């Protein structure tokens, strides 16, 4: 099991103490591998200070992540909705415990005031709680019985679509990140997430939270790296069922074209997304399939 870093680790170093610099890893299949490419890249703060090195994921890492997500899908989607809700709520509890660390990371990445950073962290944790509460309501809200003209039981229920490649927003490294991951897994799909390239550290910390939570390995896989390098491969991958193109910027059109070859479900980027607004079901339903079951009624 990966070990938790204590939140105090980022406290100012004692005078004269040499800081321990960090090179982070990917989060794939519940473990923390380095990129198979051996590459990493420097992450800097809003004002240009070196913060840490992050792994620079390769297409092979993306492929491994898809394999992990596919392997995890059967078990995760097969859990009861109540159990998924319990696990997600437990993640929210752990996020709360890391609030100060997330605020530090946001402040470093985005600049601005500490109060603003704390506000965004609070909103992110609340967003996670919001989706934890959706797990066992989606089927009731989105599914229904159908009054067909004949002696048949007929019912439509939503099911998770499968493996979703999620491109997290580039400019909302925590609230945006949880806002795109949580709805995918709340409904039972599994995710391969490509983080903000510039500000990946909140995602790295989220990975550490997920790794020590009850979330099964492979349900969320987190790749730090470059969208232009990873996205074309994920958009073409035949074992990826859907794409959330939120963080892909100018590449979105090309990726949607690539996705057409395997008829992936595609959530297109929206202009001027307000991450603080109530998302409703808008990020859940794009990754659902509707299954309709018929059975005759008779003695």
């Amino acid at each position, binding site marked *: 099991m990966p070990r938790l870093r204590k939140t105090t680790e980022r406290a100012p170093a004692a005078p004269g103490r040499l800081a321990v610099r960090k090179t982070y890893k990917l989060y794939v299949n519940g473990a923390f591998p380095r990129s198979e490419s051996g590459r990493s890249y420097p992450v800097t703060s809003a004002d240009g200070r070196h913060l840490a090195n992050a792994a620079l994921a390769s297409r092979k890492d993306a492929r491994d992540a898809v394999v992990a997500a596919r392997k995890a899908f059967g078990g995760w989607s097969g859990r009861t909705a109540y159990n998924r809700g319990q696990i997600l709520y437990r993640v929210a509890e752990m996020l709360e415990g890391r609030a100060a660390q997330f605020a530090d990371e946001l402040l470093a990445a985005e600049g601005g005031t500490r109060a603003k950073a704390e506000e965004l962290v609070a909103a992110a944790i609340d967003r996670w709680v919001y989706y934890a509460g959706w797990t066992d309501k989606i089927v009731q809200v*989105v599914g229904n019985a159908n009054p067909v003209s004949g002696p048949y039981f007929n019912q439509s229920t939503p099911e998770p679509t499968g493996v979703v490649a999620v491109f997290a927003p580039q400019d909302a490294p925590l609230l945006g990140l949880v806002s795109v991951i949580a709805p995918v897994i709340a409904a039972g799909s599994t995710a391969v997430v490509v983080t903000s390239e510039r500000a990946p550290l909140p995602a790295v910390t989220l990975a550490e939270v997920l790794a020590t939570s009850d979330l099964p390995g492979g349900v969320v896989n987190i790749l730090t790296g470059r969208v232009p390098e990873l996205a074309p491969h994920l958009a073409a991958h*035949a074992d990826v069922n859907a794409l959330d193109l939120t963080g892909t910027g100018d590449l979105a059109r090309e990726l949607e074209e690539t996705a*057409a070859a395997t*008829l992936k479900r595609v959530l*297109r980027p929206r202009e001027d997304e307000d991450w603080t607004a109530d998302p409703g079901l808008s990020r859940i339903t794009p990754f659902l*399939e*509707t299954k309709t079951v018929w059975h005759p009624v008779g003695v």
Partner: protein
Amino acid sequence: MADQIFEYAPAPESRSVVSIDPSYELFIDGAFTPASGDERITTLNPADEEPLAEVAVATSADVDRAVAAARRAFDEVWGPMPGAERGKYLFRIARIIQERSRELAVLESLDNGKPIKETRDVDLPLAAAHFFYYAGWADKLPHAGLGPDPRPLGVAAQVIPWNFPLLMLAWKIAPALATGNTVVLKPAETTPLTALAFARICQEAELPPGVVNILTGAGATGRALVAHPGTDKVAFTGSTEVGREIARAVAGTGRRLTLELGGKGANIVFDDAAIDQAVEGIVTGIFFNQGHVCCAGSRLLVQESIADELLERLKARVERLRLGDPLDKNTDIGAINSAAQLARIRDLARAGAEEQAVGWSPACELPERGYWFPPTVFTGVSQAHRIAREEIFGPVLSVLTFRTPDEAIAKANNTPYGLSAGVWTEKGSRMLWAANRLRAGVIWSNTFNKFDPASPFGGYKESGYGREGGRHGLEAYVNA
């Protein structure tokens, strides 16, 4: 035994209940208007290869005109109209379809080749019911669970296939109009006539001009329509290949898209199934509509312990199917829709034989003229065979066996498609277990090929996305 059974006497439906014009123009802005080009298509009766009529081929200039008419109608009339009023137009249309259903059924059977029994008892009642169903939604959209004020998208470009021409038209047009959109619809190249009859129904219903526009043509017309930047929504039913092409064309434009594509449905028969019912379901699953059904149960997965008995009964049942004149009320299997489709079915059936699967067809006389293919059952099929992987879209069943329930599910899901599946078992818990695990949009348990306007239909994976029918079908045509 056989000599004690009376032969069926011919029971032909009258062709004279329908009059077909020698030639049809495009239906744009409420009127039939000539195409800007000279090209025409001749539509044939596939049962005897006799020409039925000529239809215009819409050019891209005609597509421009139709989209402009639809836009005008959307902006000025149909969009602003209260839902209750829109609904009443749809109720009118539904009623007219019912009133003229005999005529339309004959017309459909002539143009498509499908048996009158099916057009009369399935296509027409369902088409009318679809308009009735969505008519009632028009003034109740805030209750559909799609937000407090669902808004129409605008102009919908719709392209439909030849296997259920009028029914697919209803699936496309009824929800689009109910939600306040206007449409430009292209019927299939080989089956344009009921769509043109529908254009006249729109006139009879006094539907405002431009709300429904019908453009006949072939692939080029369809491509021009789905690529048209003046449309807000594309809806397509047809092959997965064309679906990919359309998804590429729509990518990056921000226009909405729903696709109902191919399938390779698994029909799973467990050892405790009621065998005679299962046999009926297998026959319905693959031979209904000559197998020209995207959700056909084209892969039979039968538990090994009952395979011999089931196949024996299945063959005995298939031997009783009557193939021939689509207008004969006793006909079970009509004509293959076109020469091109017949060639594809023959090609895949040949591939089945070449890959060492064992083909069987009943002794059955095929008419001399027209496009015909006998009901065919392939046994000894493995998952790698082309006939187990590719959509044949014809009366050809591939039989595979399994030993355990897990193996059945694994084989059923081993396909890029995910449109339909069937489960035959008398054990409720097993039925629900299987239904949960099958990755397909429609699961028929102890039944097959049932459709209803209230029941959402559509696929997982490469069978497309979006649903048609039911409350879910509204979502494809609104901004929530």
